């Protein structure tokens, strides 16, 4: 009996010690945020700072249209207080996981669901009826806007508003963080614009049409794409027309992402006398592109170098 009591006291003592060591963590409990793509994770961390603990459900190298839902994702979603999504049907794969997570915060209409495409000026909104025969073309416009630095103000504003819905007392902090981040981004924008100024108006061919926002931001022109119907391999006729366009219009660069077929990109570029250039399609898409600013920086530098030759 005595032994049990001693053990009991030791256990209590350990528990007390453990509790004593955690008040710091208790006081600064972070908001649990989950984002669909890594760009949004980077921007949420820029806005939330120490107040948020952010997880991204996908990595920067993947094809963001089709992500396999894994049990670990459902687990993360179940515990999430906020979900940040890209919208415009890029991450419609998340819907099944949201339903499965049974988390009232993040269902459609929930307080914790942030769609950062709200009030965003969308490009390439289709003007004709879109159906499955056109591949997985996006019926609500091109959703690949997240790595266009010019969209950062709107995206971060949506994130601030969303986070403030859940934790209104921290709104001033979120706003401050946002301003600081945008200020730094502005500084870099100056450099980036200068780097691409000499090659403004250059025509570029892309593998998959996910670069339009970025190219337009810096005055470059998208002259065509390899995967005419995204998700379906290109036919010989399409490739012939593309090569012809590239030769006629003096296109010197073919932009592709890590998940594209590098071998085919190289073959087409070789045929057309152009260079294949790998760009970071999202944060973490290539080595050296691990933050939002470094990812954009990488892309600008790679393009500038390829186009100047």
């Amino acid at each position, binding site marked *: 009996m005595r032994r049990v009591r001693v053990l009991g006291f030791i256990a209590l003592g350990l528990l007390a010690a453990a509790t004593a060591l955690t008040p710091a963590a208790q006081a600064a409990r972070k908001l649990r945020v989950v984002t669909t793509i890594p760009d949004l994770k980077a921007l949420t961390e820029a806005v939330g700072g120490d107040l948020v603990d952010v997880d991204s459900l996908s990595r920067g190298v993947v094809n963001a249209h*089709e992500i*396999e839902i894994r049990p670990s994702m459902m687990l993360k979603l179940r515990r999430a207080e906020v979900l940040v999504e890209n919208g415009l049907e890029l991450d419609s794969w998340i819907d099944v996981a949201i339903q499965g997570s049974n988390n009232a915060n993040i269902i459609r209409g929930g307080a914790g669901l942030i769609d950062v495409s709200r009030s965003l000026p969308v490009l390439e909104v289709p003007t004709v009826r879109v159906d499955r025969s056109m591949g997985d073309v996006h019926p609500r416009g091109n959703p690949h806007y997240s790595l266009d630095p010019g969209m950062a103000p709107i995206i971060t504003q949506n994130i601030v508003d969303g986070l403030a819905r859940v934790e209104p007392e921290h709104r001033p902090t979120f706003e401050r963080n946002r301003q600081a981040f945008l200020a730094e981004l502005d500084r870099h924008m100056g450099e980036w614009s200068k780097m691409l100024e000499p090659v403004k108006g250059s025509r570029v061919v892309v593998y998959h049409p996910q670069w339009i926002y970025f190219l337009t931001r810096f005055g470059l022109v998208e002259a065509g794409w390899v995967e005419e119907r995204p998700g379906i391999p290109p*036919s*010989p*006729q399409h490739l012939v027309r593309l*090569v012809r366009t590239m030769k006629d219009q003096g296109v010197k660069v073919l932009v592709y992402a*890590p998940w594209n077929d590098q*071998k085919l990109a*190289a*073959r087409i570029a070789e045929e057309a006398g152009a260079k294949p250039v790998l760009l970071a399609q999202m944060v973490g898409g290539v080595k050296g592109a691990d933050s939002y600013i470094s990812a954009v920086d990488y892309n600008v530098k790679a393009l500038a170098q390829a186009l100047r030759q």
Partner: protein
Amino acid sequence: MLPELLALLWAPFLMCLVLTGIHAYLGVHVLAREVVFVDIALAQIAALGATAAFLLGWELDTWESYVFGLTATIAGALVLALTRTRRRRVSQEAVIGVVYAASSAGAVLLSDRAAHGAEQVRTMLVGNLLAVNGAEVVKVAVLYGLIGVFHWLCRRPFFLISTDPDGAFAAGWRVRLWDFLFYASFGVVVTSSVRIAGVLLVFSYLIVPALAGVMLGASIPSKLLIGWAFGTFVSVVGMIASATFDLPTGATVVCAFALTLVALWAVYLRARPAARPPSPPLAGPA
């Protein structure tokens, strides 16, 4: 349009001819051994090996990736050689089926972990014929030529074991060893072909021309010649169809194989003499 199409398609077309050459020959063996799915199983194992390499950071066109695929295929070949039992208690086809399913699922699991796995898996299925260039055609032709020479030198045991395994056992050939050599060289071919043409197209090149040869030919040489002619013909038709009807090339050639086979089958059924004996007369009234 035409000269540009030719510029784009000449290398893929030559590759198709190279594939026809080696695969029609191997297909005759495969049909004789009645292990049709060994090709698709080994092709899938090769894809699994490449996916594993991919996970470790080696892209599809590196030699490390090739070695991974090859090692996996050789291991698969070993399994297949060792599971051939004299008494055929367990159908080898069942083993092959399990191997295929396991390596397919394994590839999905691995590519889930890897960076852009879904695209990887899809490419290994339909292949990447349009991205082939002249240098690659030469490399593959030389490799397959060497394997062809090897098979020519070993033609006696290979053909004997394929067509009459019991006789081979009786005659004292070390059947398991020759089996392993056959499947290993087969594995080298499949590993290389899968990266270029994908699992489905490799399977078609292996089985369909050989089927045509078996349907129409009597002796081994005639089966081979018919198979080569058939494979060449379908490659031409498939590439022309892909170019004319604006369709992805790999999938078109696979369908061309299937359709031409169906047409051939119809002709074959019509042309061959009636085999069934006349039915006995009805019993008259008792």
